[in-house]
């Protein structure tokens, strides 16, 4: 029995390893291509380790203005939305979880049902509204809606808050704390791990967003990084400049992958937790 178990584990390990190689190989190949010169991309059979390794594609990329502005625009959108939005979302979550308000559960349910409205179904009127405000080709249509908070984040923080006893809030009220003080000094520290995990997940989703930036941002120096690399792809694929295209993709992946590797434990735990609770 014991031996059989060990044998099974070895077989499963091998299968998992094959799967893991499948997961990681395309990404390694992307890095490898980005370090080749344009001719050696087409050598058969392909070299996994470029010979010679060269950073020519990266050098050419950094000479392009659009890459720099792309990173800049992505950072502006992502950071503004997630920082302000986390603030508004966590306040709302506190209110939904701990404060008394008539119909608050009904309001919460309506917000939650709203997640089901698909973005493509409302993007046309949204576009026309923002274009009437003169916001097309600016970052505002990507930033402003996010500032009002994120229902998914409210949902998870509210869940998390249900583990915190109401008596803490009641006690603080008796001690004369204002509701904002209760939020800032009591609630926020208590839900910090959940806020951090949700913040990171939102950061990555916002960084990777493609459809909305594609609709709103016309001129190349206004575009976010995802749109910039997609345009580079369309432009340079005709010239078969694959090292350049792959280098651009590598650069766009670096920020999220760095965040992921650093916080992988929190991210994986928080995603897993949402499964058990949701």
């Amino acid at each position, binding site marked *: 029995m014991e031996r059989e178990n060990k044998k099974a584990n070895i077989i499963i390990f091998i299968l998992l390893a094959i799967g893991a190689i499948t*997961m990681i190989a395309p990404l390694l190949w992307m890095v490898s291509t980005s370090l080749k010169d344009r001719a050696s991309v087409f050598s058969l059979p392909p070299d996994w380790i470029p010979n010679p390794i060269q950073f020519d594609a990266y050098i050419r990329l950094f000479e392009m203005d659009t890459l720099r502005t792309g990173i800049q625009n992505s950072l502006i959108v992502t950071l503004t939305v997630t920082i302000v939005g986390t603030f508004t979302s966590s306040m709302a979550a506190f209110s939904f979880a701990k404060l008394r308000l008539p119909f608050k559960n009904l309001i919460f349910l309506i917000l939650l049902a709203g997640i089901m409205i698909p973005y493509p179904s409302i993007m046309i009127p949204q576009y026309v509204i923002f274009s009437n405000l003169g916001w097309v080709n600016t970052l505002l249509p990507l930033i402003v809606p996010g500032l009002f908070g994120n229902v998914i984040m409210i949902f998870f923080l509210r869940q998390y808050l249900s583990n915190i006893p109401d008596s803490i809030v009641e006690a603080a009220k008796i001690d004369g704390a204002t509701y904002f003080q209760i939020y800032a000094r009591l609630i926020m520290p208590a839900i910090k791990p959940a806020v951090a995990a949700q913040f990171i997940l939102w950061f990555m989703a916002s960084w990777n967003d493609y459809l909305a930036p594609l609709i709103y941002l016309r001129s190349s120096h206004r575009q976010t990084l995802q749109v910039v690399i997609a345009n580079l792809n369309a432009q340079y694929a005709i010239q078969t400049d694959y090292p350049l295209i792959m280098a651009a993709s590598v650069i766009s992946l670096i920020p999220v992958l760095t965040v992921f590797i650093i916080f992988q434990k929190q991210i994986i735990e928080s995603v897993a937790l949402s499964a058990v609770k949701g």
Partner: protein
Amino acid sequence: MFTDQGGLTLENINLNKDEVGVRSTSRKSKLFQSEHRAAFLFIIIPVVGFSLFSIIPGAISIFASLTNWNGLGNMDFVGFSNYTTMFNDTYFWRTLWNTFYLMIGIPIGLVLSFLLAVGLNRRIAGRQVFRVIYYIPVVSSLAAISILWQWAYNGDFGLVNQVLDLFGINGPNWLQNPDTVKPAIIIMSVWKGVGYSMLLYLAAIQSVPRTFYEAAELDGASPLQRFRYITWPMVKPITFFLVITNIIGGSQIFTEINIMTPTGGPMYSSATTVWYLWQQAFSNLRMGYASAIATALGVLIFVITAIQFYINSRSQYKLD
């Protein structure tokens, strides 16, 4: 605002006692009022945002679908003619067919991720490393991943055909061939999404109390029976959640299509509904017609989701 709170301590305690008993004395309602005000102020921003950016555009979308709007000039009411156009538009039906075809990846991905989770649930060397590796495609940007796979599907020099070549298979030019472009996109979607489902399944499996299995084993249940009667029912809510979110997400598939097959694929074989409505709205400026497609899509997603909730609630009664 709450400077006199210190004096209110006693009343506050009274209030907590009262909660179970009689409601609403005048002092209590005053306290309630201030709490209501704070609670209201804290939730008002998301509520306003939701109304401004979801409800109002949703209503406009339904209205615009009844007009010949081009996004600039006036909206002339045209009745249901956009919808009749849509029903007779073979391109629309093809994109709808393609959208559903691509959802074949959902069951494939769920089975694969469940098996992976069962495997990872065992005591195996490097479990944490596996978890991280399988999750990397999930966090990666879809745009970059699409660009990467477009290159990987290159007929002559792409990674996919190089690997197939090792097994003596002569791979097709994946994205240029109407027969292979959809399978190609399905394979990529499964590759990108499997880590997420796996993680949820793994968490669900680990949350099953060990005693369940021990008891079943004592009763002489076979591994298959234990799977059938313990593991599967315990992960059913996760399966339900994943099916719902995957279908909602899958019906909105756009980025992969637009990057990998910028013209909708050979003979429109990879054009999806969202890609088509995006084209109609922003390239052809047929905003009224695109709004009709958008509304139809929204209704379709809602109906499918509602049906799933209905089936799920019925099958749960059966279990009981």
